[in-house]
C-alpha cells in the first residue's frame, strides 16, 4: 500500500442551523485501500460522505483529493475529478435502460460536442460506439449484459445495486465511495459483494471508501476503519483495534445502567455488573400468549426487510426486540401494527388473526404503538395529545383516570399539560408518546426506540416508567437500540440480524452472550 493519501479530511465541520452534525473530523484514506467509515445512527457518516461528494459545502475544514482541494465544489465537478459514489437508497434513472444508465456517466469523458450530437457527425458516432463498448464491458463484469435493454426499474434489488456501481465506474474514478452497498442484501449476496469490492479495487486500481452498517462486511473487507459517533471521531485504525475499542462498544451497544462515564474497561465490565442487578428477575411469568407472530415477512419493493420472523409475547411480559441498524426491528413492529403489508406470515393478537384487521381497529382491540421518532402532534398541547390517544375511549371517567396515571408515571408531563407538544424536549416528547399510547388502555404496548436521541437522565426516567407500566399489568414489546438497557429491563429478548431472529431467550442469559456483540459488530475473521 502506498503511503499517499487519496482523500484527506482536515477538521471538517458541518453545521446546519444550530445543529452541529459533524464537528471537526480528520482522516486520511490511503491510496489503494479499502476504507470503512462507520458509526451508529446519527453519527454524521452520511454528512461527511455528502461533504466529500460535493452535495454539501462543509462549514469548516478542508477536503483534498490527491492534494487538491475539492470542498465546496459542485457535485458534478467532484465527480469529474474522479470521486464516484453510489447512494444509500439507490438512485438509478429508472425510466432509462440499464445500458443508458451507465452511458449517462460516460458523458463526462465523451469527446462529442453538442454539434456532433445535433448532426450525428462521424466523430459523434465513433465516440458513441466507444462509450457503448466500455459500458457493455462494465455491465458484463456485473453479469448485467443480458438485461442491458431492460428498464432499470425492472431489475431486482441486488441488480440495481450492482448497476449503480457499474454506473459509478463508468466515470473512470480514482476513488469509489459506496454508501451502504450491502443494505438489504442477504448473507450470500453480501458475501459476493465483499469479493466484488476487492476485485474492483484491484482491477480498476481504485481507492474504496465504504459507509456500511453490516459489520460482517465492514470488518471483513476494510483494511482501515474510522468510527464516528455524534459527529466526532471516536476511533480509527485496523478492524481488530476498532472492534474491541471500548468507545466503539459503547457507541454501538449503549451504556449500561451504570452512569459512570469513564471509558476504558468500563464498557466491557458493564455487561457483567449489570447481570447482578436485574430489576425484573423474579417476576412470575404467565405462559399465556398475548401476541404470536409466525413467519412474518415484510418487503419494500424488492428488498426483504423482515425474512420470516416468529416471536411470542406472553401476557404480563416485557419482551425486547433488539438488533443493529437495519435489522428489521421497526419493520417488524410496524407490520404487527398493520402499518406495513405482510409478504407472508401470520400475526395472532389476543386470540384473533390480524390479517383482516385495519390498523385503526387495533387500538380498540387493545394494541398501542409508540412509534419511532415519537410522532407526537407538535401543534397540540400535551393535554390534547393525550386526549387524542384516548380517541377510542368513550368513558370520560376513564380518560381522566388515565391522565392522572400518566402524570403519576411521568410527573414532567403534569407540569407541562398546557404546553404545545412541539416545544417539549426530546425526552419529554418520548414520555408524551408513551403516555399517549397508554391512553387507550392497551393490553399490549409496543415501544419503538424510546431512548433514541435522548439525554441519559431522561432515559433513566423513561425506563423507570416502562418498568412501572409492566408492573401495572400491561404487556410490553420493546424495540431498542440501547441493547444493555433493553436487556436490563426485559425478561426475554429476540435478537434480529438482517431480518431474521438470530438469537432469542432469557434476557439475563443474553446479557452474557458474546454472540449478541457479534450481531452488532460482526465477527472478526482477521
Amino acid at each position, binding site marked *: 500500500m502506498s503511503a499517499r493519501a487519496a482523500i484527506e479530511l482536515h477538521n471538517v465541520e458541518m453545521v446546519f442551523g444550530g445543529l452541529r452534525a459533524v464537528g471537526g473530523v480528520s482522516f486520511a484514506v490511503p491510496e489503494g485501500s479499502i476504507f470503512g467509515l462507520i458509526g451508529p445512527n446519527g453519527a454524521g457518516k452520511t454528512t461527511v460522505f455528502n461533504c466529500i461528494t460535493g452535495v454539501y459545502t462543509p462549514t469548516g475544514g478542508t477536503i483534498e483529493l490527491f492534494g487538491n482541494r475539492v470542498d465546496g465544489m459542485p457535485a458534478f465537478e467532484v465527480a469529474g475529478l474522479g470521486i464516484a459514489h453510489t447512494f444509500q437508497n439507490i438512485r438509478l434513472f429508472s425510466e432509462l435502460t440499464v445500458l443508458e444508465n451507465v452511458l*449517462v456517466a460516460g*458523458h463526462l469523458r465523451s469527446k462529442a460536442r453538442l454539434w456532433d450530437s445535433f448532426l450525428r457527425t462521424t466523430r459523434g458516432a465513433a465516440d458513441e460506439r466507444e462509450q457503448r463498448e466500455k459500458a457493455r464491458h462494465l455491465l458484463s463484469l456485473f453479469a448485467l449484459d443480458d438485461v442491458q435493454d431492460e428498464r432499470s426499474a425492472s431489475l431486482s434489488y441486488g441488480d440495481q445495486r450492482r448497476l449503480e456501481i457499474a454506473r459509478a465506474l463508468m466515470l473512470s474514478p480514482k476513488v469509489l465511495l459506496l454508501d451502504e452497498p450491502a443494505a438489504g442484501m442477504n448473507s450470500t449476496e453480501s458475501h459476493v459483494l465483499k469479493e466484488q469490492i476487492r476485485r474492483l479495487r484491484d482491477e480498476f486500481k481504485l481507492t474504496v471508501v465504504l459507509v456500511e452498517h453490516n459489520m460482517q462486511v465492514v470488518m471483513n473487507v476494510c483494511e482501515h476503519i474510522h468510527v464516528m459517533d455524534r459527529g466526532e471521531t471516536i476511533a480509527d485504525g485496523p478492524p481488530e483495534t476498532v472492534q474491541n475499542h471500548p468507545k466503539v462498544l459503547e457507541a454501538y451497544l449503549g451504556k449500561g445502567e451504570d452512569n459512570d462515564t469513564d471509558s476504558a474497561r468500563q464498557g466491557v465490565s458493564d455487561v457483567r455488573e449489570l447481570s447482578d442487578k436485574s430489576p425484573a428477575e423474579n417476576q412470575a411469568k404467565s405462559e399465556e400468549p398475548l401476541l404470536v407472530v409466525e413467519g412474518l415477512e415484510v418487503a419494500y419493493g424488492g428488498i426483504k426487510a423482515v425474512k420470516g420472523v416468529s416471536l411470542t409475547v406472553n401476557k404480563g411480559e416485557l419482551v425486547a426486540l433488539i438488533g443493529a441498524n437495519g435489522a428489521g426491528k421497526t419493520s417488524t413492529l410496524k407490520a404487527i401494527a398493520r402499518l406495513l403489508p405482510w409478504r407472508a406470515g401470520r400475526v395472532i393478537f389476543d386470540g384473533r388473526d390480524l390479517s383482516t384487521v385495519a390498523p385503526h381497529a387495533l387500538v380498540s382491540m387493545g394494541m398501542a404503538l409508540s412509534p419511532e421518532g415519537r410522532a407526537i402532534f407538535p401543534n397540540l398541547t400535551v393535554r390534547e395529545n393525550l386526549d387524542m390517544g384516548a380517541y377510542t375511549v368513550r368513558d370520560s371517567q376513564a380518560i381522566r383516570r388515565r391522565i392522572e396515571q400518566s402524570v403519576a408515571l411521568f410527573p414532567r408531563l403534569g407540569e407541562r399539560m398546557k404546553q404545545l407538544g412541539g416545544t417539549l424536549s426530546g425526552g419529554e416528547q418520548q414520555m408524551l408518546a408513551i403516555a399517549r399510547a397508554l391512553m387507550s388502555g392497551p393490553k399490549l404496548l409496543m415501544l419503538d426506540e424510546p431512548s433514541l436521541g435522548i439525554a441519559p437522565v431522561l432515559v433513566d426516567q423513561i425506563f423507570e416508567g416502562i418498568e412501572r407500566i409492566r408492573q401495572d399489568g400491561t404487556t410490553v414489546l420493546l424495540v431498542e437500540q440501547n441493547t444493555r438497557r433493553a436487556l436490563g429491563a426485559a425478561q426475554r429478548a429476540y435478537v434480529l440480524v438482517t431480518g431474521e431472529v438470530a438469537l432469542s431467550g432469557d434476557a439475563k442469559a443474553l446479557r452474557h452472550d458474546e454472540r449478541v456483540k457479534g450481531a452488532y459488530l460482526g465477527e472478526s475473521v482477521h
Partner: protein
Amino acid sequence: MLRKLAWIAGALALCIGVQFAAGALLNAYLIRIIAVCTLNVMLAVSLNLVNGTTGQFSIGHAGFLAVGAYASAITSFALDAKIHAVVPAFFADGVTLVIAALAGVLAAGIAGVLVGVPSLRLRGDYLAIVTLGFGEIIRISIESTPAIGGSQGYPLGYTSIPGYAKLAWILGGAMLVVALTWNLTYSSHGRALAAIREDEIAAEAVGVDTTRYKVLAFAVSAMLTGLAGALYAHDATGGQHIDPGAFRLDRSVDMLVMIIFGGLGSITGAVIGGLFVGILLELLKELPNLLGGGDGALVRMLRDNAGNVRLIVYALSLVLLMLLRPQGLLGTREFSLKALLGRRKKAAS
C-alpha cells in the same frame, strides 16, 4: 455520410412532392389544415424537449412562439425589398424567409436563455409559474408597443407579412425540428437531459452539469419554437398577419395537451399529439357544420360558445386519457414498427 445525404435528398423531394401534389389534388382549406397541423407538430416536438425529455415544466412556450413570429416578421418586412433587389428573383422569396426565420430563431433563443436561467433554481410548480409569467409578459409587452402594432397586430394598415412559407417550407421545417431533436435526444447529451428528468441528484453525481443542461434544453426548445413562429408568421395559407391574441395562455395549454396526449418524453408521441390536437381543434370549429349547419338551438349554442366547447372537449379527452392511459399514447417510448410487429407476434404465439 452517404446515408445522411440520401436522407436529406429524400426529405427535400418529399417536401416538394407534397407541395405539388397538394396543389393539384387538395383544396385550399385542406392545405391550410395540413399546414396548421404541421406547425403543431413543430411546437409539440420542441416543447417536449423541455417538458418531456428534461422533465422541466414550461407553460409559457406561446411566448417563444410570439418572439419568433414577431422577430421574423419584422425582419422580412424590413428586408424584403432590399433582398429582392440583389438576389435573383427565383431565390429571393426563399432567401428572405430563411433570413427572417434565422432572426426569429435567434430572438427566441435569447428569450430561452433568459427564462432558462431562473429555471436553475426552480422546480415543478414554481418553474411553471415563472414560464407562465414570461409568456404573459411577452404578450402584454407586444400589446403595449404601438410601433409593432400593439393589440392590432402586425403589420399595421393594409400591408401584410409576405406569405413565403409555402407548405414545402413548413414541412421541411418540421422535418428539421424532428431530426435535430431526435439526434439530440438520442445522443450522449440527450441522455444527460433525460438523467436530469429521472433524478437530478444522481445526474450531478455522475458528472452532469445540471444547470448548463437545463439552460441548453430551454434555449434549444425556444429556438425551435421560434422557427415554428417564423413559419407561422409567413404561412402562405394563413392570414399573413400576426396579433398578440394568438399567443395567449391557451396556446401554451394547447401545446401541453399535445405532448401529454402523445406521451411526455416521446418524440413520435409529440408528432402524433400535434396532429391529433390540430385535427381535433379543426373538427370542433366545424362541429356546427358537421351537425348539419342551419340555425338549430344546439348549433347556435355550439357556435356561440366555441371557446367553451373546446375546453369541455379538451377536459373530457384528458380525463379519458388519464383514466385509460395515464402515461400518454406512447409513454416515454418511441413509436416503432418493429416493436409493434414484435408485440403482435408475441401476442399471437
